[in-house]
């Protein structure tokens, strides 16, 4: 097998990064329109993973993640505007349910698509201020049963890739900080204790990113390993954020503990990606014993 991004994929990553930088800070609707216009929602799995990693890197506020990786794989189509999906009957902590044009509801009888306006969705205050989470009464209280088993692989991939992106941003912020900040007459980053934490963060990110790309490849080729690969990607991303959160906040010191510092957005995004649709421990349990 080949495991290096090809020229086209690297180019895509650069273009995505530039496009996000260009619309950053504009109203969400404008950002969303840009992504739609660039055709990102239709991207195949690996390309989608690359896009989502960049969106995670930017703590993107739009409903892209839920639309592309929750709604689309369940319904087999894109929504008329934005979409999301309800994976359990109670409809709790549904990403973007308060603003989705269409909602796919997973029931024991199959998938039912409901206009967002018909659902009574109540946004839940979440620690990540840019994340829309809502409780909905989906009207199909029978639910889908085993949460982890019913969630599409692409939804796990989406959260994993977003998480990896947020983690990469945390590491970059930390690197900038420890290169500049001097203590005891030296840059913080010259201390071995700091270097070793940064190196461990990098390795954790590389591990999780590799498993994310593998997961995307198995989905793209409908490889029999795809379900397992999705659990691995989600678990590795969750483990990664756990380490990156801990070391990242620690290395930023008191400055990272403030509301003004942008570090918080990525810490919260990464943590949210782990907690949604089952944390690392849940997905480790779901992996097959060989």
């Amino acid at each position: 097998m080949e495991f290096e991004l090809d020229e086209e994929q690297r180019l895509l990553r650069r273009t995505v990064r530039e496009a996000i930088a260009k619309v950053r800070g504009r109203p969400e609707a404008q950002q969303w329109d840009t992504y739609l216009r660039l055709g990102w929602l239709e991207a195949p799995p690996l390309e989608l993973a690359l896009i989502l990693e960049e969106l995670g890197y930017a703590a993107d506020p739009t409903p892209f993640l839920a639309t592309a990786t929750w709604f689309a794989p369940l319904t087999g189509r894109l929504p008329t505007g934005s979409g999301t999906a309800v994976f359990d009957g109670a409809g709790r902590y549904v990403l973007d349910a308060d603003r989705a044009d269409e909602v796919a509801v997973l029931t024991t009888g199959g998938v039912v698509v409901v206009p967002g306006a018909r659902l009574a969705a109540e946004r839940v205050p979440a620690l990540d201020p840019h994340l829309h989470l809502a409780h909905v009464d989906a009207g199909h209280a029978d639910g889908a049963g085993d949460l982890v088993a019913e969630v599409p692989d692409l939804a796990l991939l989406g959260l994993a890739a977003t998480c990896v992106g947020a983690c990469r941003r945390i590491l970059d912020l930390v690197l900038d900080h420890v290169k500049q900040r001097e203590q005891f007459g030296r840059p913080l980053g010259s201390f071995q204790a700091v270097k070793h934490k940064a190196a461990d963060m990098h390795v954790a990110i590389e591990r999780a990113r590799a498993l994310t790309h593998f997961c995307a490849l198995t989905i793209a080729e409908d490889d029999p390993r795809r379900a397992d690969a999705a659990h691995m990607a989600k678990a590795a991303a969750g483990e990664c954020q756990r380490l990156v959160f801990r070391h990242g906040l620690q290395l930023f010191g008191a400055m990272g503990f403030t509301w003004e510092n942008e570090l918080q957005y990525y810490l919260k995004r990464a943590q949210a990606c782990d907690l949604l649709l089952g944390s690392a421990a849940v997905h480790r349990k779901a992996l097959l014993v060989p």
Partner: protein
Amino acid sequence: MKLTDDPEVEEFRAEFSDFLDAHLPAEAEARERAGSSAHVPEWARRWQRTLFDAGWLLPGQPPEFGGRGATLPQQLAHLEELARRRIYHSFNPQGLGIIAASLITFGTEEQKRRWAVPILRAEITAALGMSEPEAGSDLASLRTRAVPAPDGFVVDGQKIWTSGAHDADVLLTFVRTDPDAPRHRGISALLIPTDTEGVERRPFGSIAAEDDLDFNEVFLTGVRVPRENLVGPLNEGWRVANGSLGHERTLLWLSYAERLEDLLRDSRDTGADQDWYATLRMDLTALRLLGYRQLGEDRDPAEISVLKLLGSEAVQSASLHALEAHGAEGLSHPVRTGPYRHMHHEHFISSWFERYARSFAGTIAGGTSEIQRNIIAERILGLPR
């Protein structure tokens, strides 16, 4: 990026597999424990020669050096096939993968003929005289001196951790030839036959067993080395050393992947918990993927440190979990024999405790985990020295 296997690589793998089916000697089942990493039993010498003659010893090399000009992915397939069947291609991996390989890169025609080919054909074995008491990961601190003499050099000093030296015929030795030059610049590489007067080798046991003799202290006292044994240009030993290790490093991760796979295979019925299997499978899969990525063009050599750190620490943590899963039985020594076949001696001599203890070889040898973290932080992440 693609999951599907390259047909040229798979064809190559199949050809090698057929060769193994036809030629693997019956003695390979003998389970003979090797004396050290440079001790090659007689039947294994014949086996290595068979591989050499057929171009299956170091497939990346040209035919005159036991290969067939194979690509890097093909070389990986070759090693994977050996690993899958637990077959050694040599009991003297350093001689093969480091010393002969560096002679092919840096040596004179005469050195290739006189040393490299015999090492490859298992007529002689070689050990690597790199570490010293005051210089482990910090090779530039080495002190063993070589002073010019009429027809060569006179060497004085001490080496340590020299794997297999007491069984080896020759040492590739790194020595200081210019004490006044900056630390990296004054080093040279010399071939020193172990029967030269003034070479004294003292093997000592490892943590695994008192009589597990692989490490040596090597004392070099007034050792006369002819000029023609200088490998590469005078004072360019640093380049030779880095080149030598480069050969070993590119596919080093594969040995960690093999060990993880062994642990997975051997622990299946031990009642180890699900969480452990999951972590092991994730580490193994990620290691393989990142290793494959390293086969691509223009990869940063510092990424080898990511593979080494990830692989060696995963093996260590997996070995610890396997030990724990066996409870008190994990302490019994020697041996828990598994359903092993072929030549992987390290496995059928190992208790679970021993495997765990040996896993520290991975986090210490070839640059400690701490050194790997520094390399990652400085060369990949750009933190100041």
